[in-house]
């Protein structure tokens, strides 16, 4: 029982991180209909920013400072890459984000070299022991940072003044403009936010396991999570993130010994099964039909 609980909580912790990254990805998709294939590289950029800042700053400060820089990076991507392409056909935009991903892969390698980088110092070790339940520091940090951030984001979107505007722009840019809502600024903000959320993941993972191309692979977990959540539902992404995190964790605990390698496939198997039953994912917004 305690082994199960252990896996469950660890899964929720990882899941919160997935959720956070997926929420940014989903927001971008909702606001611009762009599927950002460079999301893994956003993570990577977050990791390398943390690494670089960490050369001169203590790690916690490096991580904190990464966020505004990543936000600015998101704004740049929106200005330079996305805005010129908006309104073009879907394939062109997808190719562009794939191109962006490759360019960023190359650029980060050029700038920082191909080898794995490790950070100076580490986050304070926070192991949590609740009776038999022992949570590694990694999980505690992720629970501490990612989970509140994810919940705050859902709340802000639902309730805050800006959240309402983001949802309005996501639904119809032209209707928003007609109501004097500064849609371009809000779209840019959404890209910045998405980059910053990915960077939270990147920074946290960098602090835990160093920086290198493995971060891209982590970033790709956003896809099963977002699809499972329904692509355009931020709340859906949150729950789907948890679900995938937990499934992965359980699979690692119980199935990995029997079927080596199964854990990597688990998220995608779940997506496949869910989509067979519910083509719009678990929480995809249903079109409002009214005569």
């Amino acid at each position, binding site marked *: 029982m305690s082994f199960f609980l252990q896996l469950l909580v660890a899964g929720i912790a990882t899941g919160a991180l997935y959720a956070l990254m997926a929420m940014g990805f989903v927001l971008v998709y909702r606001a611009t209909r762009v599927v950002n294939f460079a999301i893994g590289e956003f993570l990577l950029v977050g990791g390398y920013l943390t690494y670089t800042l960490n050369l001169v700053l203590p790690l916690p400060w490096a991580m904190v400072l990464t966020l505004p820089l990543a936000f600015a990076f998101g704004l740049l991507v929106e200005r330079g890459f996305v805005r010129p392409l908006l*309104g073009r056909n879907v394939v062109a935009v997808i190719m562009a984000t794939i191109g962006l991903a490759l360019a960023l892969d190359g650029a980060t390698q050029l700038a920082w070299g191909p080898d794995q980088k490790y950070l100076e110092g580490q986050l304070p070790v926070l192991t949590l022991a609740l009776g038999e339940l022992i949570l590694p520091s990694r999980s505690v940090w992720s629970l501490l940072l990612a989970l509140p951030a994810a919940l705050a984001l859902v709340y802000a979107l639902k309730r805050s*003044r800006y959240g*309402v*505007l983001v*949802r*309005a722009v996501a*639904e*119809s*840019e*032209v*209707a*928003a*403009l*007609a*109501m*004097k*809502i*500064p*849609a371009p600024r809000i779209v840019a903000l959404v890209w910045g936010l998405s980059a910053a959320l990915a960077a939270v993941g990147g920074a946290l993972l960098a602090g835990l396991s160093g920086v290198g191309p493995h971060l891209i692979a982590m970033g790709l977990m956003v896809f099963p999570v977002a699809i499972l959540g329904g692509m355009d539902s931020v709340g859906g992404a949150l729950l789907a993130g948890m679900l995938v995190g937990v499934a992965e964790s359980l699979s690692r605990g119980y199935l990995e010994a029997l079927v080596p390698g199964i854990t990597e496939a688990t998220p995608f198997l779940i997506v496949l099964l869910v989509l067979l039953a519910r083509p719009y994912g678990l929480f995809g*917004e249903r079109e*409002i039909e*009214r005569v």
Partner: protein
Amino acid sequence: MLAVENLKVVYRGVILALDGVTLRVEPGEAVAVLGPNGAGKSTLVRALGGLLANYEGRVLDGRILLGDAEITHAGPLAPAREGLTAVLEGRPVFRYLTVMENLRAAGHRLPRARLAREIEEVLARFPRLAERRHEQAGYLSGGEQQMLILGMALLTEPRFLVVDEPSLGLAPRLVADLFQRLRQLQRERGLALVLVEQNARAALAIVDRVYVLERGRVVFEGRREEAERDVDVLEFYLGEGPAGYRQARRYRRRKRWV
């Protein structure tokens, strides 16, 4: 004062939708822009709202002036700064937002306390909206959506309010009611109203002056009474006129078109 001078608009570089439109609206005045389907009415509304780019459209020639400011190429947020709000065709409310959220989105530039007061005023004006304030706007009826979008437009604090075919798809009784409310609003707030309509009879009841568009051009311009007297306008935009005469004229008109 709103002035449109010799405005030419193309879509995708080739489709000429406005071919030299000139019109003028004084502050506080109610003007109707009438015309059949495809005349270019919505194009005019989009141009006034600075929204052509969202439809792959572009101003080819001419200009739009609001007071002293030229807003022809100034982008979507410029008309707003100068006090013009364009309500697009098809009552484009945010369907996944609740009535309240729609109103808050539209009034986002107002300070918090003011916004709350103004929203209450809109809800008092349109009690149906008050009843359904927490429902998603996509589930409102057409008439309710039209009231909502008008309420939203009011929260942007326009001096010039341009409304594209508010009567579309509404029952005649609703149209009459809606237009009376529009008229009342326009008077109370001292708004200039540009009412773009195919439903000429209903529109004529509440305006001072009339423009008629046809194939991207102004083919008639005058006071409401003149429009009501003019046989062409009656015939083609009100579907009235002396019967035999009407036949002959329509024939002649058709020949002129082809």
